[in-house]
C-alpha cells in the first residue's frame, strides 16, 4: 500500500484509484457505523475520496494512509450530521418502540444499536478495519484506555446477545421436535 501511496503522491491517479478500491469496504463499514442511511454513507465516502485526492500530497508518512483516510471520513460523517440540523445522535434519541422490543426480543441488531454509535464505530474500526487501539484513540481524540473499555463493553454485550439468541434458537428447535 505504501508504494501505491507514494505513486499517488507523485500524481498517479491509477494508484489513487487502487488505494480507494482497496479501502472502500473499510470506508463503508466505518461510515455505516456513524450514519446508517445508505445514501448518507455514499455522500460521506464520496466527499472523503474527493478530500483525500486533493490532500494526499500533505500526508507525510504513507504507511498511515488508512488511518489518515479514516480520519477524514469520520470528519465528513460528522459534517454531514451537522448539516442535517436537528438530527440527534443515536445514543440520545431512543428508537421508536425500542423499549418494548427490548423486553420481547433478543435481537442482536438491537443490542448493537443500543451500544451507541461511538461504541459501534470503535468495534468496527478495531475488529473489521484492523486499526490499532492507539490509532483509534488518536483518531477519536480519546484515551487508549477508553478505546479498550469500549471494545470490551461492546464485545461483551454483543457476545451475550448473540449467545442468548443462539440458545433461543436451539430451544425453539427442540420445542418444535
Amino acid at each position: 500500500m505504501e508504494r501505491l501511496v507514494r505513486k499517488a503522491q507523485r500524481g498517479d491517479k491509477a494508484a489513487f484509484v487502487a488505494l480507494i478500491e482497496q479501502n472502500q469496504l473499510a470506508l463503508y463499514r466505518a461510515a455505516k457505523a456513524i450514519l446508517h442511511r445508505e445514501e448518507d454513507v455514499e455522500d460521506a465516502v464520496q466527499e472523503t475520496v474527493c478530500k483525500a485526492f486533493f490532500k494526499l500530497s500533505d500526508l507525510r508518512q504513507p504507511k498511515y494512509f488508512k488511518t489518515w483516510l479514516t480520519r477524514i471520513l469520520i470528519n465528513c460523517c460528522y459534517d454531514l450530521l451537522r448539516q442535517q440540523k436537528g438530527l440527534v445522535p443515536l445514543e440520545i434519541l431512543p428508537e421508536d418502540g425500542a423499549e418494548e422490543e427490548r423486553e420481547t426480543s433478543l435481537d442482536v441488531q438491537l443490542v448493537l444499536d443500543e451500544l451507541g454509535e461511538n461504541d459501534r464505530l470503535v468495534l468496527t474500526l478495531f475488529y473489521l478495519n484492523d486499526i490499532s487501539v492507539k490509532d483509534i484513540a488518536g483518531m477519536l481524540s480519546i484515551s487508549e484506555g477508553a478505546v479498550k473499555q469500549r471494545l470490551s463493553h461492546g464485545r461483551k454485550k454483543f457476545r451475550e446477545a448473540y449467545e442468548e439468541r443462539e440458545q433461543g434458537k436451539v430451544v425453539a428447535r427442540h420445542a418444535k421436535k
Partner: protein
Amino acid sequence: MQRNDLKRDKRFRKHLARELQVEQPPESYLKAVRAALDDLPDELPVKRRPFYQSALRACAAFAAFLLVAAVGVYGAYLANPVFVESLPGVGQIFQELHREDQEQPSPAPWDQESHVNQEQEVLEEIPPFEPQTLVGGGGTLIVQDAWCDRLYLHMEAELYLEDQENPPLSTYADPYDPSTDTLAVYVDGQQAESLGESALFAQKENGLYSVSWIFQLPEERRHGETLDVTLEMPCLTNYSGANLTTDIYGGFPVTVDTSRSLIQDLETEDNGITLKRVEATPSCITIQAAVPEFGSLASTMMLPYSQLDQATQRLGYYGQLTTPDGEILPESPYPFSNFTSYPDVPADDGLYHVTYTFQALPEGVGQAIFTLYEYSPATVSSNGENPASNRVTAEFTIDLGTRRVYASQNYLAAGRKKLDYRISADIDRTPDPVNGYICPMPDTSENFTTWCLYTRDTEYRPVELHRYENEELAAVYTSAPEEEYNAYAEGFSVYQGNQHLFREAHLDSLDLGGTWNVLLFQLYDTENSDFFYDSPASRYELVDGETGEVLIQDVFRAFCQQYDQVFGTQLEGSHFGEDSAGDVSDVEQTTDEVSTASPLPR
C-alpha cells in the same frame, strides 16, 4: 479487561460484520465510489519542494562534503603529517596547526560534567499562575491555570455561558473551512499551533464547562521569559454543528518554567547507536536517535509471502521508555505526536534516523530509561509482553535530576543480552526447518487462509496439504508443477484446484539470506468454515505427494515452534496447552561477551 477482548478472531469478526450488515457494500455504494473517482482530475496535485528547501539541501550536502573532505585530510595528516603539510593550499593550515600543537597543551576531552554544570545553574522559581477572567459577549472564560515548559503552552480553563447548552461543546473546526475557526491563541503576536483536532468541554456539576488546551509554541523559549498570550474564542460548536457565539477575547502573561524540562543536543553513543537530541518536558519526551544496520525482519522468514515485500523493516531500532520501576511509558502520546516512523532505508549517512515520542514521566519520577530492542515488543506480542529473549541494542538513562543522558546497563538485571551491532546484520535468524520447510505465519489478510512454506530446495517436489477436522480428513490440497498451471491470478500463473489455488515462486534476496522456494496454498474452501487454522479441532499436515511420507504433522504447530525459536515467545505452549519453552536461537556473541563490550553505566 480480558486479553481475548483485543484478539481479532475471525469468527467474531464474521459475526460482527453480519450483524452490523456490513459484510459487503451494496452495488449503489460501489457505483457512487466509482463515480466520485471518475469525476476527479486525471492527475493528483503534487507537492513541489520549495526552492529554498532545495537550496538548503544543496548547501547541507556541500557542507557535508566539506566536512568529509576535512576529516579525510585530517586523517591523512595524522598518518603522514609531513606529506599533508607539503600539499598546496591546505598544507599551510596544517603547518599552522602543527605549530600550535607544539606550543599549547592538547585540549582536554569534551568535559561532560562542565557542560552539565552549565545546564545545572539554579533556575529562579516561577510564581504560580494567577487565574485570569476573560469576559465575552456570550460567556466568560476563567483561565484557572496556564504553564509553559519551553516547548508547549498548557491551559486549564472553565467556561460560563449566558445560555446553558447541552454538551458536548467543542472548539471543533473544519480544517477545510476557515469560517468555522473557533479558537486562536497567539504568543507574542505569533499564532501557536493547537494540538489535538478538537477540545471537548466537559460540563461540571456547578454548570460550568471545563476544558484543557495544549499549544505548541512558535519557537522555543527560555526559563523565566514572560509570554504575552492572547486568546480569541469567537464561537464554539455544539454537537449538532451549530455555532454558539461566545465573543471572548483577551490576553494575559505566562512565565516559562523549564525546571522540569531537559532539552539537549547530544552525541551520546552506545553500541553504535547515537542519541542526537532529547526533549524531556512535563508534556512529553521526544528522542532523536541514529541507528546503524542491525539486519532485517524479513530475514527471520516468519512473515507470510504477501508481507515479505512490505516487511522491509529493519531490526534494532525499536525504542521503549520506562521508569526505573519498569513502568512502560506509552508511545506517541496524543496529541503530541502521531506515530513513530521507522524508516525502511538508511539516510545518506548509512544510519536510520528515528524520532520517538513518549508520554512524559509521571510527576515525582526523575529518571527515564530508553531501551532499544532487536525486535519490536509489539511484533512479539500485541499485549506488550516482551520476553527476555528480545535482545537489547542500546540503553540510555535520561536523568532529569542531574540533567544528564548516559549509556546504562539496567537491561542486565532483567536478564537481557545486548546484540553487538558489528555482528548483528550477519546473523542467521532463520529457525530450524522441519524436513526442509519453514512455516511462516499463516496469512489471513483475505477472507481465507493462505499457508506459505519456505524451503531451500528449489527443485519441484510434489506435496499435499491435508486438512483434518476432528482428526478426520476434510480436504486435500495438492501442489502442481508449473507446466500444469491452469489459471492466472493477480498477475501470476497459478494452479487452480477445486478448493484451492497453488503457486510456487523463487525468492532471491540478500535480506533473506539467499535463494528460497516458496509454496503457497490459498484455501478458498475455508472462507465460510467454522474451522480456523488455529482452531483446536483443525490440523494441517504436509505430506509427500509421491511417497505419502508425512513431512510436517501439524503445520500450525511447526509455525508456533519456529516462531518461538526466533522470538522467544511461548506460542506453542499457549495454543497446545503444553509447557514447551521456546527454543531460542543463541547469538554467538553479544556485546557483553566480545572484548570491546559496551561501557558500564557512566
